[in-house]
């Protein structure tokens, strides 16, 4: 019988997943500690962090915007499939949702240009 989503997974799967998560977290911490020679830098003469920070900020903003818009598009497609008569209203809500979420990523773009 396939394991449907209605009942919780068996205990062994939960323990195995927890161990995998613990190992992943410890591996990530080990990789971060690999950068410890950075502590030996001499102070003064700081690098200019404006551009790298702008790149990272824009990347995070675009990524999260993509996630949000993906959810909107998925819900709209499913709703239009379930209820083909309401397509006009759903399409309207889809467009508004996409534009408003897009504008959040664009605010980050504007800040990128200002901070340069």
């Amino acid at each position, binding site marked *: 019988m396939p394991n449907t989503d209605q009942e919780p997974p068996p205990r062994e799967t939960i323990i195995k997943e927890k161990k995998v998560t613990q190992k992943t977290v410890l591996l990530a911490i080990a990789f971060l500690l690999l950068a410890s020679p950075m502590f030996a830098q001499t102070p003064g003469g700081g690098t200019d962090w404006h551009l790298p920070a702008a790149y990272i900020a824009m990347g995070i903003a675009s990524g999260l915007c993509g996630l949000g818009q993906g959810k909107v598009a998925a819900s709209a497609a499913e709703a239009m499939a379930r209820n083909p008569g309401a397509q006009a209203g759903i399409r309207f809500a889809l*467009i*508004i949702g996409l534009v408003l979420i897009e504008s959040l990523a664009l605010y980050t773009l504007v800040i990128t240009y200002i901070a340069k």
Partner: protein
Amino acid sequence: MWITGLLNSTLAGPANAVLQAVGFKVEDAAHPWADWLATEILVVVILAALVALLRRSFSVDNPGTVQHTAEMIFAFVKGETNDAIEHHGSRYVPFFGTLFIFILFMNLIGIIPGIEAPTMNPAVPAALAISSFAYYNWAGLREQGILKYLAHFAGPVWWLAPIMIPIEIISHLARLLSLTIRLYANMFAGEQVTLTFLGLTYFVIPSIFMGLHVFVSFLQAFIFMLLSIIYVSQAVAHEH
């Protein structure tokens, strides 16, 4: 642009006088007229010419193409307005229609090579957002009177007022900012993307991004108008 050069050579004096009267520091006294201002005036002239052309050929029985298009746009704007505002929506339709057509033409004129869209300069969306902000506040004040309109800021119950009033004021100012930045960033980013891809690949490939830019132009004009409609509908809403 040659229009800007023409304006600078003939009307530089009055422009400097106006700027100094407002208190704006003029950097380049020989060229007070900017490209985006000349393009905006060009868009207004084009729209006026289109409407003049339209009025000559008005006909009930035999409408031409331009009249059909104008009727479609009008029905669209009026439908959106009446969806959001319950009664007396039609008195606000001229402003929303103007916003939509003006922003649409300003966005689209940037597709023509050699002409830069005025909305790519942050001043133009800021001016449009200020006019929209002033309009919805004026509509709310006119509809409900000063005291009742200001009482809106206090929220639903009186004892929440000290916390609601700053939040409402900030959210209203954030509407100004978001309208500006949404339009400006969409237009600016569209052009930047096309330019970036022009530097990366062959000559014709970035035209896909220009197509996307046309779609985004329509969308942003529509969204600006729609948000203005929503703000006006919130400002004139009577609680029954």
